[in-house]
């Protein structure tokens, strides 16, 4: 008799390795990537840019993680956790890159010397040293907020990653190449929910519209470059976020229209704030929770 399970194939492919349950057949995303900083690029700029993109991923990952045990269904909880893990993976690579460019802020003064740079940056910076955008910092009141914000954030980030694959920095290019399929899935997942909530019941429509109305103003500074981004874009290392505006708005218009939601007016471009370390008060409690264990038990492992 022929018997098979999809899980047998994993052990078959990896011999007697008992650790297959923890994952196998994965490639280290930076394996074989040259990590020298390209000529003519200021390491301080590169590191600052990696912090912007890494902090966006880290903070959004933390926001999504907050829905574990609170999602409407177990299945959706796992989906949000998977997306959060993808983003955490992106954050790790980007914060490591910032560390290799020696952009560590005050974190190294506080973190134990043996702690990797990525952990020092995640756990031992204060809110004013974070470079994430207001879009990812905002709290999410309900599930409609979760998926609308995820739609906007993943649409922006996918448009960016798509272009960043051609970066002159080999690490940024590799991180972007890994991120594109992940972000495509995140955007797809969020869009499916926005369609279903917008074009669902009267109550789901009301909540989805309220979420759209609340999230839209947070996009105001997403398309304004900092001086760091401008310099790096000129050096073909970064992408000027103004380039993303049309694509991001096209996607959002398509989804919202199909979801029968009213498109609020686009906010005018404002100067960057989060990218310069200016954040609303809601970042502080988020980071307190994210950093509490690492700060209370320095050097702890589990």
């Amino acid at each position, binding site marked *: 008799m*022929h018997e*098979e*399970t*999809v*899980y*047998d*194939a*994993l052990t*078959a*492919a990896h011999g007697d390795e008992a650790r*297959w*349950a923890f*994952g*196998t*057949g*994965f490639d280290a995303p930076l394996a074989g990537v040259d990590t020298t900083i390209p000529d003519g690029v200021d390491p301080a700029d590169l590191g600052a840019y990696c912090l912007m993109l890494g902090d966006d991923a880290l903070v959004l990952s933390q926001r999504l993680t907050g829905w574990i045990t609170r999602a*409407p*269904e*177990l*299945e*959706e909880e*796992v*989906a949000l956790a*998977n997306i959060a893990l993808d983003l955490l993976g992106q954050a790790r690579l980007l914060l490591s890159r910032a560390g290799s460019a020696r952009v560590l802020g005050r974190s190294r003064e506080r973190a134990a010397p043996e702690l990797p740079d990525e952990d020092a940056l995640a756990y031992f910076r204060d809110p004013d040293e974070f470079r994430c955008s207001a879009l990812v910092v905002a709290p999410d009141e309900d599930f409609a907020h979760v998926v609308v914000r995820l739609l906007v954030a993943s649409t922006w980030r996918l448009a960016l990653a798509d272009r960043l694959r051609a970066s002159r920095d080999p690490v940024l290019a590799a991180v972007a190449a890994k991120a594109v399929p992940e972000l495509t899935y995140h955007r797809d*997942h969020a869009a*499916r929910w926005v369609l*279903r909530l917008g074009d669902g019941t009267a109550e789901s429509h009301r909540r989805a519209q309220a979420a759209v109305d609340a999230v839209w103003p947070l996009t105001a500074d997403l398309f304004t470059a900092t001086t760091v981004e401008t310099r790096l874009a000129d050096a073909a290392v970064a992408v000027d976020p103004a380039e993303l505006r049309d694509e991001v708005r096209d996607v959002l218009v398509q989804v919202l229209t199909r979801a029968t939601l009213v498109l609020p007016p686009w906010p005018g471009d404002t100067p960057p704030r989060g990218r310069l370390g200016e954040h609303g008060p809601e970042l502080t409690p988020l980071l307190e929770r994210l950093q509490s264990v690492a700060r209370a038990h320095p050097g702890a492992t589990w």
Partner: protein
Amino acid sequence: MTGWPLYEVFVRGKRGLNHVHVGSLHAPDAEMAVHAARDLYTRRNEGVSIWVVRSVDITASSPDEKDPMFAPSGDKVYRHPTFYEIPDDVPHI
């Protein structure tokens, strides 16, 4: 908890020939069920293809009918190809 219907999930592994039942999940519709199945059942590179089907659409044999359904084949040895030599290089038998 909610009124989401139950779906049965079938995954075809990388080297598998058939879709194999791996479990079930709740989802608001079939498309979302495929998505949820990706997150719940293919977290470790297992799958290359996913099928879902509403559990209520599966017609199953009843445990009460076990004997009338299956016992009559128990003594029909001539239905088993036990009298043949099977070459080593014939797979999936």
